[in-house]
């Protein structure tokens, strides 16, 4: 668009040249009517198509080197489709063609364009969308006179709740929040009668939310509330004493109504095959732990125990076999150092006994004995770990589905111990992975929050740091005595 003023300056120059040259040029598509052209003393573009026969007698160098040519070509650079030196017939100007068709239009249109200032074009923008606050205020104003009529306000409230929910979702960056609602009730609007507030009583949250095991209704105030225990207690709304009866034992709970999971591949090894089930379980535990724990059945404790013991024992034994040849040189060097230190009388007797134990631990008989006892160690540590994890989860109120759920999490969390087969660093990585997988398992099997699962898993290791070392040392010593070593 910035080319337009310069283009019409050039057109003026071309007009002057046309008057000077006379009938040297002619339009391509019309016979020239110079009487008409000459009679119009207005801005007119020249006819710039040069015909060969009309150029006869006119030297070409004069045609392309005259001052008018430079004056026209320089401002119209990029605008004129011309290459006079190579193809003189292509000396074409688009405005000229328009002029040749209709002189009035050629005059009027360029003048109109010439009036446009040579400024940068402004990109047109979409009108501003009303902000969220504006929409909310508008809807609240609409809603205000109708607050007495809950039914008529329901669509507005629904729309507002959708907006607020979308806003909160964006504000929380996608984090899911706990939905406080009554199962089976319409929870989108969230219009619920507030609990009656009594003077002198602290404000309490909405009581008709199922947070405990039992949803009860007060016979005095007719409000519902959830409680963890049956028996004699006070209504949290009106404060009057009441008795919550025990739920019937045969009544199915929502957890019972949930479809029973199909079981992990290891729990379905009868149909999948032993090796396939093992590999699929290992793969899911390492790559899709949520899927694995969600499919675990809580009544298959024996199968879960078998997986943990088998997985840990096999890979630990494999790691021992791989480690011996790979780290033989390092062990020999350490053994020489220890032998030199053992003969030093300045070394304390306790340290000397430790060094002797280190030397004996690398013997083949010791390795074989440890490999045979690895299932016992795994069984022991698995149950100690599960018991401590479950104990902490109970104290923290996170044990929602009992010990079998905790055990399933701890058992399948032993899958990363397959890294015990990797010499040197495999055990460290495997143990860290085990802790993380244990937390994931607690979250999925107990259906608790991430924070609760992490606390339940990490706290036992804090407690276990001594017990695990003591148990391992005890069994090590017992084994040494059993094989006849002092």
């Amino acid at each position, binding site marked *: 668009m910035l080319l337009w003023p310069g283009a019409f300056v050039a057109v003026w120059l071309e007009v002057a040249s046309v008057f000077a040259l006379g009938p040297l040029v002619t339009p391509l598509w019309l016979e020239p009517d110079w009487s008409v052209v000459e009679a119009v003393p207005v801005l007119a573009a020249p006819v710039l198509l040069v015909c060969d026969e009309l150029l006869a007698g006119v030297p070409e160098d004069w045609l392309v080197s005259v001052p008018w040519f430079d004056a026209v070509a320089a401002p119209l650079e990029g605008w004129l489709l011309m290459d006079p030196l190579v193809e003189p017939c292509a000396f074409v100007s688009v405005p000229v063609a328009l002029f040749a068709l209709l002189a009035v239009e050629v005059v009027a249109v360029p003048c109109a364009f010439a009036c446009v200032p040579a400024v940068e074009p402004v990109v047109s923008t979409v009108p501003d969308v009303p902000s969220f606050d504006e929409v909310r205020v508008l809807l609240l104003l609409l809603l205000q006179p109708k607050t007495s009529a809950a039914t008529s306000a329901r669509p507005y409230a629904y729309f507002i709740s959708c907006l607020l929910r979308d806003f909160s979702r964006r504000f929380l960056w996608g984090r899911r929040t706990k939905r406080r609602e009554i199962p089976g009730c319409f929870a989108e609007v969230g219009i619920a009668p507030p609990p009656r507030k009594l003077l002198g009583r602290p404000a309490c949250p909405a009581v008709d939310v199922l947070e405990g095991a039992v949803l009860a209704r007060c016979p005095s105030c007719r409000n519902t509330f959830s409680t963890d225990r049956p028996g004699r207690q006070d209504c949290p709304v009106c404060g009057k004493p009441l008795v919550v009866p025990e739920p019937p034992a045969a009544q199915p709970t929502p957890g019972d109504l949930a479809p029973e999971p199909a079981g992990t591949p290891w729990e379905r090894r009868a149909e999948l095959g032993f090796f396939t089930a093992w590999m699929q379980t290992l793969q899911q535990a390492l790559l899709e732990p949520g899927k694995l724990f969600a499919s675990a059945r809580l009544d298959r404790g024996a199968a879960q125990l078998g997986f943990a013991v088998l997985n840990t024992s096999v890979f630990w034994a494999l790691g021992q076999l791989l480690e011996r040849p790979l780290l033989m040189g390092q062990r020999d060097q350490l053994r020489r150092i220890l032998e030199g230190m053992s003969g030093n009388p300045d070394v304390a007797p306790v340290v000397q006994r430790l060094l002797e134990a280190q030397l004996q631990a690398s013997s083949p008989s010791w390795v074989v004995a440890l490999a045979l006892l690895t299932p016992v160690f795994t*069984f022991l540590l698995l149950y100690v770990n599960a018991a401590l994890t479950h104990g902490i989860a109970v104290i923290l109120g996170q044990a929602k589905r009992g010990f079998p759920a905790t055990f399933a999490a701890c058992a399948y969390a032993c899958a990363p111990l397959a890294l015990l087969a990797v010499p040197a660093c495999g055990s460290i990585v495997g143990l860290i992975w085990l802790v993380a997988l244990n937390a994931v398992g607690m979250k999925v099997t107990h259906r608790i929050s991430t924070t609760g699962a992490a606390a339940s898993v990490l706290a036992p290791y804090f407690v276990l740091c001594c017990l695990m070392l003591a148990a391992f040392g*005890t069994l090590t010593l017992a084994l040494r*005595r059993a094989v006849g070593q002092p």
Partner: protein
Amino acid sequence: MIARAGRPSVHALAFAGVAILLLAAAAALPLDAPPLALLACPFRAATGLPCPGCGATRAFHYAVRGRFSEALSFSPLATLVAAACGAHAVWTALRLAGLPFAPRLENTPRARWVAAIALLANWIFVSVQGRM
């Protein structure tokens, strides 16, 4: 709370086995010989304070030998756990023999608070006693 129950579950049997292993190891354990004598609590080494599990090994050791006063002086909670291990093993054996009752622990808020307070009190006791 004692309630009627059928045969012990897999986990109950496994816990009985774990209890027997722990008690047997504690009975055969010489505390003043390596490698146990060389083991040190990492938490205590790092902070100078005992961890909640410190003293449990000695408490198990003395409880198995019937020296309950010494066991309690090291860790009252571990002494109770040792007694619970023995009781669970015996009770499971009785259930295998046909006893139709089993203890049932209620997961109530009061029980949770009692457990948390017991754990904290034991930790304070071990820290104050400082017998490790």
